[in-house]
């Protein structure tokens, strides 16, 4: 067996020194540290600073017995995951075996110990630990690689942002001078000159739109778009967009119709981004619908989603182009309607935005029969909202999911399990306390999100201290996303509370200017 770089450790707990030394000799091998303890107290104290592959725990000991030790181990997050094999000479009745499993024994063996059996059992646990360590190491490598990619992507975004800023100034100058000629401020232009300036101005606007769209797209693709989702009334958003487009549609005798059923459930999404998608889609429909045509905005429930459809009576899109329309810089030769030429980025942006909100954007159309662009958004629910909060918070950080933790602070209530998805998504620390100021940081991980129940005393003090800690560590720009939960909810049995909007103004003021997001 090859010597591993980092020796594995196991602990043997037994009140008899002769048992400890014989067992140690029996199990000794290269690359294995064997730690011994002669009592439950000694074992618990020693294991706090160790990462153990296995604990061989004698059941019958003076003072604290093996079951009590196991019980205390399970209560401490540092030791709760260590596997335990109970070793005992007596207590052979089933009843005792059961109480061992209740406190989390993995296995149970009896004295006198068969050397072959104990060695093979220990070997299994060492293998498990080795593969766990290997997995951890790979994860670290993976995170490092991800961070490097993110760095490259950041640099690209910085470049794009600087370049677009540099483009705006000369564009402003060109546009303003064309406009001065067009408006007759530097001499009266003739009709032909005026038309030339109109064309120049139109294209200045196109270039400006393009710069804005490129920045938008980059923000969305690199996950920096500061998105937080909330409960949305889609009927309201559709009405607003329809009203905005009203005058433009009227001017070319296009009809714009709304079809939203009464009692439509709410959706989960970001209102600004959803509006951006609607403006893009309705803008497209407006562009390609001929005079006298109609644009229809429809919303309906579809199983677990809401479905929005924007239908036009334009020339339609042949099926072979359906995938292509969502690619960047695609502009199909649909017979032009009244609208101006676009940037070729609108649908690509919309597609990304909808994806970001866990929906899908699609197209139904046949050549010559109008086009319907449709997208889905998940139905609003407290669980979906909470999930989205965590996912969006993750998207904001430059660290990988496993490099930071989410701290949930709630008052002392009966313990409940964390939902599985939450544990999978981020490292979560649950702190149950009556006083938030007693909450400390979590196992060296930076806090990137806090869910804080506002009824906990010292909630404000906790946020202030968190802020001070980050500032003193030079991370004042990396304040976590913070969510303050409302006062006592019925939902105490179920862990998933709904992050509600700006619950406590007082808390919001703690760091409103520091970029904390209150959902």
């Amino acid at each position, binding site marked *: 067996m090859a010597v591993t770089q980092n020796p594995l450790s196991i602990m043997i707990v037994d009140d008899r020194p002769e048992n400890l030394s014989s067992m140690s000799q029996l199990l000794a091998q290269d690359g294995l540290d064997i730690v011994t303890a002669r009592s439950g107290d000694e074992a618990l104290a020693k294991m706090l600073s160790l990462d153990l592959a296995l604990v061989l725990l004698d059941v019958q000991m003076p003072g604290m017995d093996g079951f009590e030790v196991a019980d205390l181990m399970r209560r401490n997050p540092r030791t709760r995951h260590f596997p335990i094999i109970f070793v005992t000479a007596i207590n052979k009745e089933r009843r005792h075996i059961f109480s061992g499993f209740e406190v989390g024994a993995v296995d149970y063996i009896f004295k006198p110990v068969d050397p072959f059996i104990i060695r093979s059992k220990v070997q299994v646990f060492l293998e498990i630990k080795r593969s766990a360590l290997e997995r951890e190491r790979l994860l670290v490598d993976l995170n490092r690689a991800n961070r490097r990619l993110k760095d490259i992507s950041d640099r690209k975004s910085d470049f794009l942002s600087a370049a677009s800023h540099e483009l*705006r*100034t000369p*564009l*402003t100058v060109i546009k*303003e*001078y064309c406009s001065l000629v067009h*408006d007759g*401020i*530097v001499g009266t232009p003739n009709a032909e000159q005026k038309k030339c300036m109109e064309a120049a101005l139109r294209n200045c606007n196109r270039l400006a739109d393009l710069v804005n769209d490129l920045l938008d797209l980059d923000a969305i693709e690199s996950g920096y778009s500061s998105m937080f989702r909330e409960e949305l009334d889609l009927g309201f958003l559709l009405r607003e967009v329809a009203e905005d487009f009203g005058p433009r549609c009227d001017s070319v005798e296009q009809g714009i119709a709304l079809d939203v059923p009464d009692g439509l459930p709410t959706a989960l999404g970001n209102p600004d981004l959803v509006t951006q998608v609607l403006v893009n889609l309705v803008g497209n429909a407006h562009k390609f619908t001929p005079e006298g045509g109609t644009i229809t905005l429809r919303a309906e429930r579809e199983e677990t989603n809401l479905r929005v459809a924007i239908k036009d009576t334009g020339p339609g899109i042949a099926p072979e182009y359906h995938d292509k329309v969502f690619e960047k810089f695609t502009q199909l030769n649909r017979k032009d309607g009244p609208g101006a030429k676009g940037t070729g980025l609108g649908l690509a942006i919309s597609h990304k935005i909808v994806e970001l909100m866990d929906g899908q954007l699609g197209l139904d159309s046949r050549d010559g029969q109008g086009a319907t662009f449709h997208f889905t958004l998940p139905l609003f629910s407290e669980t979906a909202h909470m999930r989205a909060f965590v996912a969006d918070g993750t998207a904001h950080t430059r660290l990988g999911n496993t490099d930071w933790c989410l701290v949930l602070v709630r008052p002392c209530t009966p313990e409940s399990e964390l939902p599985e998805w939450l544990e999978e998504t981020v490292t979560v620390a649950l702190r149950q306390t009556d006083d938030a100021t007693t909450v400390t940081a979590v196992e060296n991980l930076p806090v990137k999100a806090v869910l804080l129940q506002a009824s906990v005393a010292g909630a404000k003090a906790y946020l202030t201290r968190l802020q001070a800690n980050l500032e003193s560590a030079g991370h004042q720009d990396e304040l976590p996303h913070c969510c303050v939960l409302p006062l006592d909810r019925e939902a105490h049995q179920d862990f998933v509370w709904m992050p509600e909007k700006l619950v406590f103004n007082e808390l919001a003021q703690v760091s409103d200017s520091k970029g904390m997001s209150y959902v």
Partner: protein
Amino acid sequence: MSKGKILVVDDEPEIVRSLTLRLGAAGYEVHSAMDGLGATKKAIEVQPELILLDIGMPAGNGHVVVERLRNIGETSHIPIIYLTARTSDEDYRKARDGGVCKYITKPFDSEVLMAAIESEMERSVELTP
């Protein structure tokens, strides 16, 4: 008779020149500065009814100019419109905190700019006894 004094501040000379032409044609008396320090001096000297201010400039950016002007008695009340290529959240926040009345991004529509100027000028006339 001039419709009022406007101070145009931008480090890009062509922007100053084109705005001077447009505002002059619209009947305003136009003064200009090309950096933060010049802007503060000119504002005190000319006492304009309105300032069009760029953010990214040498010798004190737009936010610094706003802060200085707000702390000087005779300029603290002058309405300011930002005319800038910058669009970060930070810039918007500083504009709001400094009491800047309008935030117009470059490239701008001259109609939008002129409408904003006229509404601010009308308001400042109302306020002046």
